């Protein structure tokens, strides 16, 4: 899946060292990135640090992002997620370490690492099956079936706006369930 044209242009401007383009990237994506980091870490201060770091990485190493491989939003979200999970894990380790020494240091996370391990992906799929029928249906069509909002609406015989709001509701439910288990 290729990035949209406005991602490409923003990327071109950041590679060319245009500071204003970094500000625009922040304006477009900071609420999403901060929302993700806050949900995973449940800590506003940490989530702000992660948000700042994600945009700094985009500025400092803009060639690490390749628009041929996906959207800027997904790339930024992947890095934010990795950082947020690392934070949660290191907090957990700190709590555990009061009880005794750790035997193994975990591998340092890399940028290009996959978002989800196999068992985590399985948990996401299971969470989808537990959604109420009407919500599960839209998620399966939109994500597993690759349909657009409009196509989802057509197949279910509901207006596009209804399909869209059902997907949004489904995503919120999923987020609640998944982050509750993580915590």
């Amino acid at each position: 899946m290729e990035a949209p044209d406005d991602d490409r242009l923003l990327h071109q401007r950041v590679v060319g060292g245009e500071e204003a383009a970094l500000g625009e990237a922040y304006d477009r994506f900071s609420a999403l990135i901060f929302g993700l980091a806050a949900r995973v870490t449940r800590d506003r201060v940490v989530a702000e640090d992660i948000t700042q770091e994600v945009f700094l990485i985009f500025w400092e190493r803009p060639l690490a992002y390749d628009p041929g491989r996906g959207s800027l939003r997904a790339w930024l979200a992947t890095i934010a997620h990795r950082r947020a999970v690392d934070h949660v894990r290191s907090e957990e380790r700190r709590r555990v370490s009061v009880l005794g020494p750790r035997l193994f240091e975990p591998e340092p996370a890399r940028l290009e690492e996959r978002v989800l391990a196999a068992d985590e992906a399985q948990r996401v799929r299971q969470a989808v099956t537990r959604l109420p029928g009407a919500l599960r249906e839209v998620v399966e069509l939109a994500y597993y079936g690759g349909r657009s909002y409009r196509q989802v609406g057509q197949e279910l015989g509901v207006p596009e706006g209804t399909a869209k709001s059902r997907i949004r509701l489904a995503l919120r439910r999923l987020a609640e369930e998944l982050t509750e288990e993580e915590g």
Partner: protein
Amino acid sequence: MDPVERLYLDALTAEPAEPGRSLRPQLLAGARARRRPAERTAPWAEPFAGRVAAMDALLAAAVDDDWHRVIVEGWTLQELVAHLAAKDGLLAHAVGAPVLGPPLGVLDAAGRTAQVQEHERARSPEQTRRDWRAQADALCRHLATLDPAAPVRVDGLEAPLGDQVLARSLETWVHADDAARTARLALPHPVPEHIHPTADLCARLLPWTLAVSGLDGSGHVLELTLTGPGGGRWQVPLGLGDPPGTDADVSISADVVEFCFLLGGRGSAESLPARLGGDTELARQVLRSAPALSGP
């Protein structure tokens, strides 16, 4: 991206939240410290400042092995950066901007390149990179007050300052692309506003590339259509000193970036996807001679 991963990330970002207001200014201040933005300069010199910033972003990602890998002309990445510094230095010298590196002994591109490369081989790649960038940024600042129409002589060639700077921009672009290919990185194109003046220079160079190839295009007018962001349409009189013409008898249509790279010595007339019209034999000669002015 895997659909389950996309679903998961979309779920986690389904509820956007506003970070504190101070975060934006903090970010922008922090960004300057982590990577220098493109140097401020006159609008006509911005394509050069932009390519310098892009090349520097590429160099920032280079690790030890990358610096010693051969990129082009048998040069390592460090030697390539020294070559760019050498040629930037010749322009800097011509306009009275600071020149870094060894004292200027020779004023031709090949001689100065050899001199700067020799000097830089004894230093670390980071030092080479730092001086190349500092000299280029100082040149950009110096250009801000100059007249782009003033004639300047560099490496034996007299041309308006604006064109000399665009030529530096094209060369920095082409070499950044060489380095990115070796590193298997996708270097994005410059923004369309920077591509357009570069393409304009390339179009105006065509009578010269024909002439140095021993061909005479006098009396012929080329309609050049360059497609893609930053492209456009030009009526190019093909004889040196021909008046501006509008009655084109030959036409070429090609991608704007591939055309600029052909002038920059990359790709070939035979492999360039182009639509030719009118006097197609002349059109082929124009394309075959297009790289004639590209040095190393």
